[in-house]
């Protein structure tokens, strides 16, 4: 495991940049545990101060220190992305392995559902959920909904790998040795799909955080919980660009772009690592 990471850092510039970008963002989010202010408090510092030695990221029109407020926002947003990634991975691994290994009508049934989920445009559906749940739509509930919508692409990918594994020698040995299907799937086949699971988890986080930011900016989540989306929502609400408090917009946007870029670079470098042909090409083999 450590050797793989060390190799990636040595040979893969994208991976290195991705790790650096994400480390900055994660450390920043973790700083929120040392925040002197509670994130719900408003008018605790002088409003509308530009970035300075005292307020590194300035203060916003609601009298919050943007540095600490944003670190809470990033903690919530990253936690949200991670929750969606973990939950949707569980669904996609289960569906993908079941469909791939069992085949037959199980496969057809699951893939039929899969195709329905692929075809449904998610944004209107999320808006519909907001419309019903209103301010009950907190970070965790949104994560649950997103997880239920975010599995089909990756389930299909895992299924295609599982189909390949089914006809391999060791699977036949396991069947003859009397291993139960569930043990074959989750002990023998699961390790083979793990690299895909990791790389798709990154892509999934980009996708879910993207929607979270969008819904937050529109004010379609609980706007009192600081997330990256709601931070931009409040900035828009106070016409930050017109008033001239540009740091309120530019800093969160820069940080979130860093997050996306970091995740994306990790995802593509992992993909390349999984594909041995491109790995050899890069190492000059």
């Amino acid at each position: 495991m450590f050797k793989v990471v060390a190799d990636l850092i040595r040979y893969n510039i994208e991976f290195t940049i991705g790790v650096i970008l994400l480390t900055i963002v994660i450390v920043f989010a973790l700083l929120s545990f040392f925040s002197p202010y509670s994130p719900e408090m408003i008018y605790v510092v002088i409003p509308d101060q530009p970035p300075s030695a005292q307020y590194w990221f300035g203060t916003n029109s609601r009298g919050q220190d943007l540095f600490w407020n944003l670190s809470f926002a990033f903690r919530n947003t990253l936690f949200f992305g991670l929750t969606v990634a973990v939950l949707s991975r569980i669904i996609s691994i289960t569906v993908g392995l079941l469909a791939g290994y069992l085949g037959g009508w199980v496969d057809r049934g699951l893939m039929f559902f899969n195709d329905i989920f692929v075809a449904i445009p998610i944004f209107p559906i999320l808006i519909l959920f907001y419309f019903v749940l209103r301010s009950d739509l907190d970070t965790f509930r949104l994560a649950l909904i997103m997880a239920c919508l975010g599995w089909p692409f990756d389930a299909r990918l895992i299924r295609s790998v599982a189909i390949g594994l089914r006809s391999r020698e060791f699977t036949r040995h396991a069947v003859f040795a009397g291993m139960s299907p569930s043990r074959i799937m989750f002990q023998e086949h699961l390790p083979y799909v793990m690299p895909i699971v990791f790389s798709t988890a990154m892509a999934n986080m980009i996708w879910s955080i993207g929607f979270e930011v969008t819904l937050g900016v529109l004010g379609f989540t609980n706007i009192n919980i600081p997330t990256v989306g709601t931070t931009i929502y409040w900035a828009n609400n106070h016409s930050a660009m017109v008033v001239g408090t540009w740091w309120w917009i530019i800093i969160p946007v820069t940080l979130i772009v860093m997050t996306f870029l970091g995740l994306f670079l990790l995802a593509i470098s992992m993909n390349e690592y999984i594909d041995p042909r491109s790995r050899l090409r890069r190492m000059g083999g």
Partner: protein
Amino acid sequence: MQDYLFFALKRLVQLAAVVFAGVSAAFVVAHYSPISPVETIIGRVAGQSTFSPTAIESLRQTLNELFGLNAPLHEQFINFWVRFLQGDLGPSLIAFPTPAMTLVMLALPWTVGLLTVQIIVAWLIGNILGGLAGYYQNNRFLKAFGVMAIGIQPIPYYIVAFLMVIIFGFLWPVLPISGGFAMNVRPSFTPEFILSVLRHAILPITSLILVGIGTWFLGMRALVSNIVTEDYVTYAELAGVDRDKIVYSYVMRNAMVPQLTALAMALGGIFSGTIITEQVFSYPGLGTLLIRAVNGGDSTLVLAVSSVAVIAVASAIFIIDLIHPLLDPRVKVG
């Protein structure tokens, strides 16, 4: 041919299933909305003057009947489908009593326009440049383009659109940042109006293309850089076949099909991105209508927009699926 018809029929069944599932889900979710359309209208009417309680009660009865809310849920569900198939979803609330479908139909062409232009341009340019980048791997310009694509592709639609508004709205105001056409021109087939529509479409379309192009570029580059290692490409090169011919007819033609599948898979996401972008630019399409409906507590309109969105995306995927076997004779039909 018979195989193809069978294939098309199978896809059609799938299309029907997707539409049924999506629209039914939308119906159920909207049904459990705490915002009652009847109470909203009563609130609006009764807020303007004083009414006797009996008058309000009879108004409530009439409205309940108008919306068909007295029937049990399964009957409402059947009624909903019967009327849905006739294209009637009831009156909208934010523009009462205009039918919700009329509003949706007014907004639909704007969204479809944005979507079509954006997909065609992004898909073609992204694939052609990606194919060239995969074949000529040492070209400086294509390498730089690749770095740019990696930089922009992961950013969500909203943020890119938002940055465009900041740049062209505040820093360098040369293009209109909101609306579908200028306020002072009448919608008609005059050059003035068409020019205004085009000018207003530049920013939304550019922002959509910027995000979209990277996906196709990176996908195509990865596909082509694997294909060029195949024996038949080496053979063609040794045989002295024209390089351009190798790229376009031998390499990219083969990589086109997975990219078309990818387009069908990505369509739902692209649609979501389009309506998000519309909202940023206040473009008069489905996205803006949807947000207005949510803010106005208009459940009929929300339901209408979501249903039409599901149908539009599912039909587009259906069409792409039908083209598929025509482009690639290797795709097994049936």
